[in-house]
């Protein structure tokens, strides 16, 4: 009986505290907003990048297109999955949405690495600048994404943060193509993978605190 009274008291106090709320926009629309910011950043970076050199590289190594396309797709799908899974009633299987694109990205990059194993290895300074670029660009993108995801008070904070991290890291890795001098050298791939992993783990660590459900 006392528990019923407790529930009743809680219900009354919650109802007394009731204010009209603004409903969340559909997840795909919120994902589109974030992707729009990424696209704007990409356009700004493209204005200072050497697009002619990029075009030559892509023309010379056709499978690089596949890797770029796959990383773009990973960004879009990971962002949509993160916004979907942040809602309570969406199925956990949404987390697998970016998996095919991610596998294609890893596969295309790895294939290029095997085919072009004679491509000169990256110098240490280049590797460091790649790492700094991916992590550095991911920081504001992750911060924006986590702030947008936080509005949904995710009940699966870890999975949401990991998907958010994947979206930010793959977006940064895609934008890196604007400035990257080589493609698919083994050291490149290792450094890129390390940077992506750092961003994902960083997002998971911060996300658990930011979401704090």
């Amino acid at each position, binding site marked *: 009986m006392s528990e019923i009274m407790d529930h009743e008291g*809680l*219900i009354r106090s*919650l109802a007394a505290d009731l204010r009209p709320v603004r*409903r969340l926009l559909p997840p795909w629309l919120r994902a589109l907003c974030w992707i729009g910011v990424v696209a704007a950043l990409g356009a700004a970076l493209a204005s200072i990048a050497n697009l002619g050199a990029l075009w030559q590289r892509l023309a010379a190594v056709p499978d690089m297109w596949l890797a770029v396309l796959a990383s773009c797709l990973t960004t879009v799908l990971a962002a949509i999955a993160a916004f979907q899974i942040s809602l309570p009633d969406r199925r956990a299987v949404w987390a697998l949405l970016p998996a095919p694109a991610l596998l294609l990205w890893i596969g295309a990059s790895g294939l290029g690495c095997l085919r072009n194993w004679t491509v000169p290895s990256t110098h240490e300074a280049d590797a460091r600048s790649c790492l700094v670029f991916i992590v550095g660009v991911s920081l504001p993108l992750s911060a924006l994404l986590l702030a947008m995801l936080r509005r*949904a008070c995710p009940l699966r904070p870890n999975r949401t943060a990991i998907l958010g991290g994947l979206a930010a890291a793959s977006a940064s890795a895609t934008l890196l193509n604007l400035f990257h001098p080589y493609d698919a050298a083994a050291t490149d791939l290792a450094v890129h993978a390390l940077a992506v992993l750092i961003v994902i783990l960083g997002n998971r660590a911060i996300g658990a605190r930011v979401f704090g459900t």
Partner: protein
Amino acid sequence: MRRAQDGDSAAYQVLLRACLPVIAGSARRQGVPREQVDDVVQDVLLTVHRVRHTYDPGRPFLPWLRAIAQRRAVDALRRRGRQHGREVHDPIAFEAHADPARSAGQALESVEHARRLRLAIAALPDGQREAVERLGLREQSLDEAAADTGRSKGALKVNLHRALKALRGKLGGEPGSDV
């Protein structure tokens, strides 16, 4: 829920009351023990209140509610698991644990020891008793004691020394003696 999102308090109360059996049933199905179900229900009510803006009126309400209830039930089970891992229920060990405070026997012994010490001091010659009382018990300085008693500091020192020797002789063999 749509009306609750718009701020209709009466509709919100009706909705939350109707949610109670759904939440409790969901918690039980997840394996939450009977004594914890009410905690989960309250936790879910609070969560529903906090995330009510995430409900999409275009979608059915019950899956949304059940997802929150299941999540909170899992959280409660995890908390319970952690608690069991860290805390041990062992009433016998609790009862057998020695109390760091003084036992009743020790307190009685201490009272008895103080009584014997008072008697031994009272039996001392006047000069020695006065030296012990002023320098030992009242913790007066030699100057203060000399001024109060009119004796020299040297005489007070000698009297105190003799008094302590005499008290050691009487009480020194006893365990716990302070002399």
